């Protein structure tokens, strides 16, 4: 609990109308998109950098925990205030400050919603490539906090590739600028530290983003396979041949069945797996790519290949993929999304392993994967009214992540560590790796007030990492 005088001080900084501290307020900010819940002491809505800085000076002086929060859609417990304190909600800092197509940049406040930025760019013929499935809701600050990615990231790369620079408020309230308006600048490149730091090193208050022109044209196809191995081999062949599709998404049979129950995207329900492949670029270069991709699919025994001829057909192919999580939610609202990455050629083995784990724990697991970059999202279903099933599902999730690590992969493609994957960090990093990260945290936040209790497992319990795959 923080003293009532602190709440008064906060109100003096941002104004009464930008503070919430009743029981109902605290409850409303006690959760995120995971199943966890912890109570904060107060919620503050800064309007500008000066507010954020003043709040941090106060928190620094009084040693109060501060949790930066965007839309609270993270899937890792990243905004759960485990140590109480201040939830610093950036949703009211939501202005697009500048769009400069000549310099290919957009300057935004962190509360801007990803899709709102896209909508502002579209009429100018530009876009911002990272496209998390939560883009209608999630904020740019949250995207940077988690280094978000999406289907387009195979071709374009994740958030970290699209941040030129940022204004950040540090734990003691100091305001710094990192990066610049250009790619190459003198001195340390601190952007890599802050992007994906899950609100533990500082609060971004302004972002300078890299925007790019929309490709002239795109082609979308759907390839259907009777064996998952063939599916994955086709992916490897396509990428191995130097083709860089805009996206390659893999969905397994159970996933297709679930999707067809609600979306009716026309996916087969009897095939082992399907690939959604999209290429984009100059119109006259695309035809050749489509042909090459078709050949690789045929070579790998694709039983059918559909190439969208109209926008409506393209939308139908994507509608199923976009509705994937939703379709699962419809039959089982609380599901666990695993997020692991393996080297591309290990994808079939990884999916096979997921099948074994499902068998072992007797849980239903359906798979979608950003196949192009080996990022798996097995979705584990369970009954919310049976706590023991939730536990079993969590165990299955841990096993899957361990399996990814054993294959030389990582435990997070894009959803962050937060609380959900804290323990898996031990399996990923040597104590010395982790100690180096903790030292970085200590430099920027010696009192551990920024989003405490996340990412690193408690030190006392640190154990040796499991056997790691040879590839790492």
């Amino acid at each position, binding site marked *: 609990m923080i003293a009532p005088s602190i709440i008064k001080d906060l109100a003096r900084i941002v104004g009464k109308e930008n503070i919430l501290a009743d029981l*109902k307020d605290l409850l409303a900010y006690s959760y995120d998109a995971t199943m966890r819940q912890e109570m904060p002491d107060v919620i503050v809505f800064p309007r500008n950098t000066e507010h954020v800085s003043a709040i941090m000076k106060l928190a620094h002086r009084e040693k109060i925990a501060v949790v930066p929060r965007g839309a609270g859609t993270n899937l890792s417990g990243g905004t759960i205030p485990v140590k109480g304190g201040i939830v610093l*909600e950036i949703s009211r800092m939501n202005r697009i400050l500048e769009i400069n197509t000549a310099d290919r940049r957009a300057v935004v406040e962190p509360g801007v919603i990803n899709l709102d930025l896209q909508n502002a760019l579209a009429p100018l013929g530009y876009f911002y490539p990272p496209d998390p499935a939560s883009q209608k809701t999630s904020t740019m600050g949250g995207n940077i906090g988690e280094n978000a990615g999406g289907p387009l990231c195979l071709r374009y790369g994740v958030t970290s590739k699209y941040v030129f620079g940022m204004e950040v408020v540090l734990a003691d309230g100091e305001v710094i600028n990192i990066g610049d308006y250009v790619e190459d600048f003198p001195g340390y490149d601190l952007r890599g530290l802050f992007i994906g730091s899950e609100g533990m090193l500082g609060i971004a208050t302004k972002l300078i983003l890299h925007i790019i022109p929309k490709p002239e044209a795109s082609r979308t196809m759907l390839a259907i396979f009777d064996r998952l191995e063939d599916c994955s081999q086709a992916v490897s062949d396509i990428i191995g041949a130097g083709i860089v599709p805009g996206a390659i998404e893999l969905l397994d049979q159970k996933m297709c069945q679930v999707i067809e129950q609600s979306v009716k995207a026309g996916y087969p329900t009897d095939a082992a797996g399907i690939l959604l492949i999209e290429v984009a670029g100059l119109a006259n270069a695309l035809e050749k790519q489509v042909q090459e991709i078709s050949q690789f699919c045929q070579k790998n025994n694709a039983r059918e290949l559909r190439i969208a001829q109209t926008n409506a057909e393209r939308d139908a192919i994507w509608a199923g993929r976009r509705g994937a999580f939703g379709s699962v939610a419809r039959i089982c609202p609380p599901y666990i999304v695993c997020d692991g990455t393996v080297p591309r050629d290990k994808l079939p083995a990884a999916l096979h392993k997921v099948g074994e784990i499902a068998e072992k724990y007797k849980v239903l697991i359906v798979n979608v994967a950003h196949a192009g970059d080996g990022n798996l999202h097995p979705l584990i279903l369970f009954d919310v009214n049976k706590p023991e099933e939730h536990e079993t599902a969590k165990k299955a999730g841990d096993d899957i992540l361990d399996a990814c690590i054993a294959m030389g992969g990582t435990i997070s493609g894009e959803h962050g560590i937060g609380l959900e994957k804290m323990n898996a960090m031990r399996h990923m990093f040597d104590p010395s790796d982790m100690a180096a990260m903790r030292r970085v945290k200590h430099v920027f936040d010696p009192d551990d007030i920024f989003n405490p209790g996340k990412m690193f497992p408690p030190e006392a319990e640190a154990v040796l990492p499991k056997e790691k795959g040879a590839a790492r």
Partner: protein
Amino acid sequence: MPTMAEELEQTLQLCNKCGLCLPGCPTYRVTGIEWASARGRVALLRSALLDKKLDLNDLNEQIFNCLTCNGCTEHCPPGVPTGEIIFRVRQELLRQKGQPWIQRLLFQKLLPNPEMLYKASRLLRLADVTGLRTLARKTGLTKLVGDAGKAEAMVPKVPASEGLDAVKRMVKNIDKPKHHVAYFVGCYAPSFAPERAAATIRVLNKNQVEVAVPDFVCCGLPAAGYGDMESAKNLARKNIEIASEMNIDAIVTPCASCSSYLKDYVKLLADDPKWAEKAKEFAGKVKDISEFLVDIGLNTEMGELKRKVTFHDPCHLVHYQKIKDQPRTILKSIPGVEFVEMGEADMCCGAAGSYAFKNYDLSQKVLERKMGNVARTGADTLVSSCPACIMQLACGVNQQKLPVTVLEIVELLDEAYRNAKGND
């Protein structure tokens, strides 16, 4: 009898807190506050009803500032019906606290009786002509009544008409009618916009539809919106009875709220063995006017209209009845009309029935957002299909001094038919 908590438990558990509803929730978009979103409202109701961490009465604001626009459910993967949950909870609060006298008067006395309703609207008219309105404003009387006072500017000027009887007199016999419908006029048009009722009848006639205007009473939605289900059911029974005595193909209304609620009679009377079947039959005949016109094949013999038009989707049309294409089909088939889609066309305008009167400030913020979207289209005509929306939108256009005319879709159609060759 199960308690409300037991009744709602399963539904509340459906929410997996993914947050995809947030962009569809107008009150969240304009405040940025979690509990002003569907996810937040559901989470707090869960805390109150299931976890018993809160008293339901602490959530008055969250329960009553929901627009019940259903924009959230549209975006929600498991399809949590937050609007329905809110309705149910309002009902419970009403049961516990009783209804304020003014609502009792409105729902139980005025709305079941077209004549009384008409007389009440005459009082407003009287206030207009006698200058009492200005007096009230000057003396600060409007301030005393709080938010409802601020909303005073929204109450439309009452034209001199004579209520439903006047609408009945607009009915004409037509040659070789292909369809026979009962026109559900709704509460608004007879008192405040008789010219719109006239336009509706002319448009239907132009489509070879013969129109009858029976003595329907209020659809029941306002009462239900404030939790008075008994009044809503009584109104429903009365309407069903009236329709059952008529020989008609459809019950047509240009009011999206009415058509949506009339279709909902099925649910409303599901537990009433005497009425459940009749309610189904009744609801099966109800059609929104755009839905009906597109169904029967719109008569496109129209004259040219030089207008740049954008359309605001009423929540009761797009979210409640999933009617989105028909109004656009109609607008695009009017010669000369340039149709432009606005951003967030299906986001609530903040009217939500009488919401604007009770939550004035929030309603205004939602309206300002809507006006921004309208202005960005550069349209000169803003069309919608719900009297409450029209009233709210006209108010917004006035406040922002936009060079935009606000029209019901039937008014625009009427204009196009009047411009047709061979008409003078």
